[in-house]
């Protein structure tokens, strides 16, 4: 149960009812609690395929001690490799083509959950339970990656993706500001995408109302209507994103615990950037259109606004360290303000993004485009870290004289022009 505790311990006493009648009957993994119909996911990880999980050795019969030892050693080895190398992240869903076709889920093809790369054991269970949510999560992750790259396109670290399961490469395993940002923006992406899917009517289990009056959903709906979808997106994202951080317990003072706390904080920061900044729109519709009756509703902020907000938070991120007991993170420099739940936190200084480094995972800025005489980070002086730049002429073939409408296919001609291109040495 600890895996979904964030989901259940909501202070407002609202419980999100179980998805009834959904074809997710993986008996060993799920159990349904018929009485209170709450989400109830067992902590059985027998079908977990992620190399972090050490619980697959539990419950073994005592055959020979040697075999056990070998297994344990092997496991420890895998664990070591896992932490040094890339982290498996659910952000993979944003890169995956498997999610392109939502029909796959509707057909009840639950085994696909184990094929999806990057999901932790708890997230696999979520996938099986809420399989219609997975395309939205994929969409959210994709949006997050796109927004990250757009926000950092002129920075030395440009949020580039690599072709492995960590999405952003091993550089994210450093507990830096950049890691904080990626966690936050992808959590925000999930909130945004789930809320939007609810509004599109894509999902079957968006919850309905916070009104407590009649018990039955139909009556409740007729009595007081439905609650807001952003709240559902927030709660689902909290459960789904944070479940991977809660799967294991770490000893005090351990770097794993620190990283876990940091990730959870930054995930929350990302979610709050959507949830707390929903805009309100209103419509007057009283007698003769007067404003005696005014109805208001929440509007999802655009993802660009969320990205801008998180970018500000990235710039003002707080450096933290363990407290004396090694259980919580506190700010390193006392004179700075205490980080709120909306702020981002980090623990380690960012690595040098100027030069490629196999240990840190930095890709370096060699070959990056830059702007000559640019004053900001995009300027060749800063971007190339003083190494200088190459300039060459490039023939640019582009679409031009286009006829644009509010959407759809754009008819264009192609034009060619020669431009100067600068790339870092």
């Amino acid at each position, binding site marked *: 149960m600890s895996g979904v505790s964030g989901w259940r311990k909501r202070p*407002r*006493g609202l419980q999100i*009812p179980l*998805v*009834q*009648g959904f074809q997710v009957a993986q008996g060993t993994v799920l159990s349904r609690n018929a009485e209170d119909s709450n989400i109830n996911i067992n902590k059985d990880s027998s079908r977990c395929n992620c190399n972090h999980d050490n619980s697959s050795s539990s419950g073994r019969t005592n055959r020979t001690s040697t075999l056990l030892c070998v297994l344990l050693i092997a496991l420890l080895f895998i664990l070591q490799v896992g932490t040094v190398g890339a982290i498996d992240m659910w952000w993979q869903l944003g890169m995956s083509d498997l999610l392109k076709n939502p029909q796959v889920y509707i057909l009840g093809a639950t085994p696909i959950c184990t094929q999806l790369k990057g999901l932790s054991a708890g997230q696999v269970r979520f996938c099986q339970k809420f399989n219609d949510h997975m395309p939205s999560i994929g*969409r959210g992750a994709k949006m997050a990656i796109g927004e990250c790259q*757009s926000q950092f396109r002129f920075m030395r670290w440009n949020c580039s993706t690599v072709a492995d399961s960590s999405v952003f490469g091993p550089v994210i395993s450093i507990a830096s500001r950049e890691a904080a940002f990626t966690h936050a923006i992808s959590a925000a992406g999930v909130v945004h995408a789930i809320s*939007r899917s*609810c*509004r*599109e*009517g*894509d*999902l*079957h*289990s*968006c*919850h*309905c109302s*916070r*009104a407590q*009056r009649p018990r039955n*959903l*139909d009556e409740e*709906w*007729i*009595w*007081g*209507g*439905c609650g*807001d*979808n952003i*709240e559902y997106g927030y709660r689902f994202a909290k459960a789904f994103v944070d479940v991977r951080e809660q799967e294991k317990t770490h000893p005090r003072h351990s770097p794993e615990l620190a990283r876990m706390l940091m990730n959870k904080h930054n995930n929350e920061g990302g979610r709050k950037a959507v949830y707390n900044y929903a805009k*309100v729109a*209103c*419509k007057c*519709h009283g*007698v*003769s*259109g007067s*404003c*005696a*009756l*005014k*109805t*208001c*509703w*929440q*509007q999802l902020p*655009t993802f*660009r*606004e969320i990205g801008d907000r998180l970018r500000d938070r990235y710039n003002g991120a707080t450096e933290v360290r363990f407290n004396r007991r090694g259980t919580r993170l506190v700010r390193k420099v006392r004179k700075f303000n205490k980080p709120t739940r909306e702020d981002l936190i980090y623990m380690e200084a960012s690595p040098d993004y100027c030069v490629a480094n196999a240990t840190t995972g930095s890709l370096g800025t060699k070959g990056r485009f830059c702007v000559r005489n640019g004053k900001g980070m995009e300027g060749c002086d800063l971007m190339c870290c003083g190494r200088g730049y190459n300039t060459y002429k490039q023939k640019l073939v582009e679409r031009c004289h*286009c006829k*644009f*409408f*509010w*959407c*759809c*296919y754009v008819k264009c001609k192609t034009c060619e022009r020669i431009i100067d291109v600068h790339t870092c040495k």
Partner: protein
Amino acid sequence: MAGVVLETLGNKKLSILIISLLLVLAAFFLVGGLVSPAPNNVIATTAINCVDSEKLWPLGTSQPFLPRGKKKCSSIGDLHKDKVIIDEELGPNQIVFSQMIPLVRDNTQLSMSRWFQNLIGVVDLDIEFSSKNPYSEEKSPKMVLDARLYGRFKHETDDDWKLIAAAQEQRTLECAIENDNREEGASYNCDLLPLFELGSVYYDFYLINICLPVRERNIYNVNIGRLSELKVIFIHQNGGFTKVWFSMKTVMFPMVLAALCWFWNRVISQERSTNLTERTLFSLGIILSVMNCPVEWLTLAFNLPFMVLLNDIRDGAFYAMLLSFWIIFVGEHMLDQIERNKLSAYWKHLTVVLLACLSLLIFEMCERGRQLVNPFFSIWSSEVGSVAAFTFIIVASIAACVYFLFLCYLVFKVFRNISTKRSSLLHMSTFRRKYYSGLIFRFKFLMIVTLLCAALTVIFFILGQVSEGEWKWGDEDINIEYTSAFLTGVYGMWNVYVMALLALYAPSHKHFTTGDDDNSDTLSQEEEVQLTQVPSTSASEGSNLASFMAKTAAD
């Protein structure tokens, strides 16, 4: 000689009456604030972008485009980058925005209910900043929404969607963006576009299809920029609020009717011709009863889209009558020697009231009346219509101001007359002086109550507006619904007010001996017999106050 109840009722009984009326009023507010949910609910949806690849939409014969279910249309996620767009070279005329309400929640297909009474649709466009495809900021672009609204019952299938209305409507798109925010992909802030208003929620499911056809020749839908998504927001009355509202009307209707009958019975039993105040009060009661009459129950069984219009007209008639009543009431207490007591004496004042109400009625008929035929109609969308609508509203507000000044002037005159005549009270005997100053006090008291009612209406109106503006997430504490409380409270307040008038301005059966008996015992004696049915023999008209004034004038 007979007075009205207000003048003859003992202080104790008067205060009991007032306190009980105040309690009823408080009950109205509490029912609205605690029992009833918010008056309206919002279903905020994002439309599904259906693809009309065979170009069936312009033919008008096509099946509706469904956003989900077995017959779901083929849809695209992104309006610009989707693969299908490039493969099939889709044009903007081939996109049909579709949404169906209510949405699926908690794995249940909810359905609309007739308790919802009315349904409003609003469109919200998300326009992105794009330097290549800019939104025309100098001149707000004209849009044409080609919209179709369908309805279906629960027991029917997706083949049975019935077309409720179809129309091509013009709207003007007003958007703005901050200067430091002008980068690719940033969003404009766009005004909401009114889409439709339905006066009844007769079906279980509603489906909206919208097409934004591009017409280069007429410059429609051309310079609206880059659309990233179209949201349709549906607003309907909450079933809980409707239930509370209906119950209140059903309770108030017989109560006011009983008070009215009692009042008229009293007037008739006076065996004299009725005076103007009584007749006006009687018509006010009748109009209030008409407003209270809970004919809305019929909407649960029949499709009555005119009910919203009817309710607005009933409300308007009540307020018109109330405003006329105040003019006549104050005029009849002018305490000068001019004989009024007939409607023609007030033609100047009443014209103003009627003018205001008539222009509002015409506006209402233009907007809501037209919507009976075409729910997508909005008077504000065409230039001529919005000029006309503005004219009506300006005429109405000017008339309201003139009315208010008139009324203030009249009330001021009454109070001045009272204070000049008060000096003559000194020449009277102690008991009579006490009695008449009591009358004056009660008249003033009623004026103050009237003002209080008006002030409370305004205050609660503002409170409702402010509380809606400060949108909260709803804590676990008891949430007071200001808007519901405002609506039920104001409704209850005017009901209670009219009932109080009917009770206090009914002719009293008690006979006050204006004669030589200065004994204060008489008053207590009078109080004992005031409710016994003593047949009146007096033929004198009007209240004691009027006769007092005639007397002082004669002195």
